[in-house]
């Protein structure tokens, strides 16, 4: 787009498109990237924010843990229709139990939850917090608005991101040469290089994460295919896509005519009445002692799945005739199945394997979608892959941030020529600081409040979140009243201080500090602390860089420099 409407090359027009799609939704995208990156450690954040759970240390024998947990459930919910137990793993210290009472309301409303101590099976009362779920939900639904509205806003930003990435690739035809080009301490040039390097370094990640983000939101953003092919019955489409039969609660038959057999097995055993519970062949027999019966079942599962631990135990009809126990392997061998893992269904009375439900074989279309969305969420990623995804997220966050700063830096000559700062430029500059470092400050404050607010406080979880937004607002105000360079520096120092002290705060406020969590092998808690130290190091490094750059400038005290310095963080 040229003002004089003369013809221009595709690279120029793409550069124009890239700049404007980037700046219009850049701040929102930064927030989405930042909170989304933290969400790769969602379980770890949840665990850290409930320090009461740190004390649960599972023994080495998983069968023993399962037996203890089942005995705990016997005390907690003897009359429930189903029990579901998530056994401890590298990201979780406790046994997460959920159960459904008979005649419970359908769906999530009818499900009760508790965390059990892995060593004793006793219920642990943890503090009230939204934990990492707040950051995770914020990442695609924002906050304090209708869920659908939030998803639309994030979805539109994601579409802009998609356009910005692809137009960015077209703009930079010498993309790989640019990746190896970094010209430090050259002002605008360096910012451009940094933006290019972070963009190219993780380009496959950026394309994957953006496109899969759209796929995850596609039910909201693009319902028209389902609308046309299902005659408006979107729910039927969603059910079929998840491999469930529409209206499947009552009958197994229904509309099985469509769609082949792919992915038809119920994916989520937890919370839903399993298929095993219908048989009554154990009628009249006394209830099974599940704590004793589980041990040989766990041994059989270990023999069946040498590469996978048991991840989940589902008991149908506990304490009633015809009890069945379903064991599900932890982790999946394939991303194409959206993490479906092997299952074994036992008859509790005899301890014999009753069913070996086959793994679903997804169609090409659903396999394609599953690979992208599973990768987006880091589902079933091991620690190494999870850290790689986290680091890619950090690089992506940095790409958005450097792009935002570049917009301001690029306009510095224009400012100098004008002799004043146009309002629009100043607005972008202040918002950049308030969002880039301000959001990190808000997140740090959120973690601190989690430990500092009294445990018994009313509306505790809500006040943690209010604190997050108040801290963010304070950062914006601070950015508006301070000179930009000082604002960048001060906020970076504050962020680094907040995050570097979190591993210190943790043991002081009831959690397991590194000196405890490392020897106990509590990888989830260790991982959180290290992620916080990594963030502190990053912001500390930026702060140090800013301070160093200031010193020679102050000594030389050149009158021409400060103008540029003001806008170059």
């Amino acid at each position, binding site marked *: 787009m040229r003002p004089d409407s003369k013809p*221009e090359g595709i690279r120029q027009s793409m550069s124009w498109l890239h700049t404007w799609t980037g700046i219009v939704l850049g701040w929102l995208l930064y927030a989405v990237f930042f909170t989304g990156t933290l969400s790769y450690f969602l379980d770890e954040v949840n665990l850290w924010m409930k320090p009461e759970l740190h004390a649960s240390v599972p023994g080495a024998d998983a069968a023993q843990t399962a037996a203890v947990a089942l005995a705990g459930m016997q005390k907690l919910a003897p009359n429930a229709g189903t029990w579901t137990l998530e056994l401890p793993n590298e990201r979780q210290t406790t046994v997460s139990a959920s159960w459904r009472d008979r005649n419970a309301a359908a769906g999530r409303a009818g499900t009760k939850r508790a965390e059990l101590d892995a060593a004793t099976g006793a219920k642990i009362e943890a503090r009230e917090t939204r934990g990492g779920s707040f950051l995770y939900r914020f990442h695609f639904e924002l906050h304090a608005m209708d869920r659908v509205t939030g998803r639309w806003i994030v979805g539109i930003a994601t579409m802009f991101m998609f356009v910005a990435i692809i137009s960015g690739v077209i703009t930079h035809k010498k993309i790989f040469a640019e990746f190896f080009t970094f010209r430090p301490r050259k002002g605008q040039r360096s910012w451009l290089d940094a933006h290019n390097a972070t963009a190219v370094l993780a380009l496959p990640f950026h394309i994957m994460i953006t496109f899969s983000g759209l796929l995850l939101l596609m039910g909201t953003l*693009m319902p*028209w*295919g389902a609308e*046309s*092919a299902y005659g408006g019955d979107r729910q039927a489409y969603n059910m079929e896509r998840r491999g469930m039969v529409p209206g499947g609660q009552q009958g197994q038959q229904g509309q099985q005519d*469509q769609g082949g057999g792919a992915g038809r097995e119920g994916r989520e055993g937890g919370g839903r009445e399993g298929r095993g519970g219908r048989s009554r062949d154990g009628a009249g027999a006394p209830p099974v002692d599940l704590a004793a019966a589980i041990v040989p079942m766990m041994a059989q599962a270990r023999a069946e799945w040498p590469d996978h631990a048991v991840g989940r135990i589902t008991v149908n009809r506990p304490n009633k005739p015809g009890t069945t126990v379903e064991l599900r392997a932890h982790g999946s061998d394939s991303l194409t199945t959206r993490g479906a893992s092997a299952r074994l269904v036992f008859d509790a009375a005899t301890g014999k394997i009753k069913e070996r439900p086959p793994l679903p074989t997804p169609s090409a279309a659903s396999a394609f979608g599953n690979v992208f969305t599973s990768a987006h969420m880091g589902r079933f990623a091991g620690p190494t892959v999870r850290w790689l995804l986290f680091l890619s997220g950090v690089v992506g966050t940095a790409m958005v941030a450097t792009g935002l700063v570049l917009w301001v830096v690029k306009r510095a000559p224009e400012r100098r020529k004008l002799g004043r700062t146009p309002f629009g430029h100043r607005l972008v500059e202040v918002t950049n600081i308030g969002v880039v470092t301000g959001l990190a400050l808000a997140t740090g404050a959120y973690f601190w409040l989690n430990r500092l607010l009294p445990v018994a406080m009313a509306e505790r979880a809500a006040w943690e979140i209010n604190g997050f937004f108040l801290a963010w607002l304070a950062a914006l105000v601070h950015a508006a009243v301070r000179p930009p360079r000082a604002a960048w520096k001060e906020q970076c120092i504050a962020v680094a201080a907040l995050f570097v002290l979190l591993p210190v705060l943790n043991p002081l406020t009831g959690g397991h500090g590194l000196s405890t969590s490392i020897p106990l092998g509590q990888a989830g808690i260790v991982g959180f602390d290290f992620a916080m130290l990594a963030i502190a190091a990053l912001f500390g490094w930026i702060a140090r860089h800013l301070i160093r750059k200031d010193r020679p400038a102050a000594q030389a005290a050149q009158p021409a420099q400060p103008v540029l310095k003001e806008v170059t963080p």
Partner: protein
Amino acid sequence: MNKKTPLPATYRWLVASRSVAAIFGGYLLAAAWAASMSLWLQKTGMARVDAVSTATMSSFVVHLCAAIWVFAVASTRRAWLGIALPAALLAALAWLARAVAGGAA
């Protein structure tokens, strides 16, 4: 973009026009693609659920290409035509698929 002279009003209007074409026109085109391909892929023997998924997933790429097209072509009229014609064609195809299905049933 770094011109010191104020940008002419016509230029601003052209940018606004193309933005509307890219964002809303592109969305309409993608929606027509999703609706139409969902129906036509079924006719190739693909399962209904897979036809809808394939059409919907690819529709985001259609929107992307539409946005790039709108800002890449020299004239704003061509940009609009490049959105409107395929969108109308796809809508007609969707209608046709419905009509054929209705006749068969």
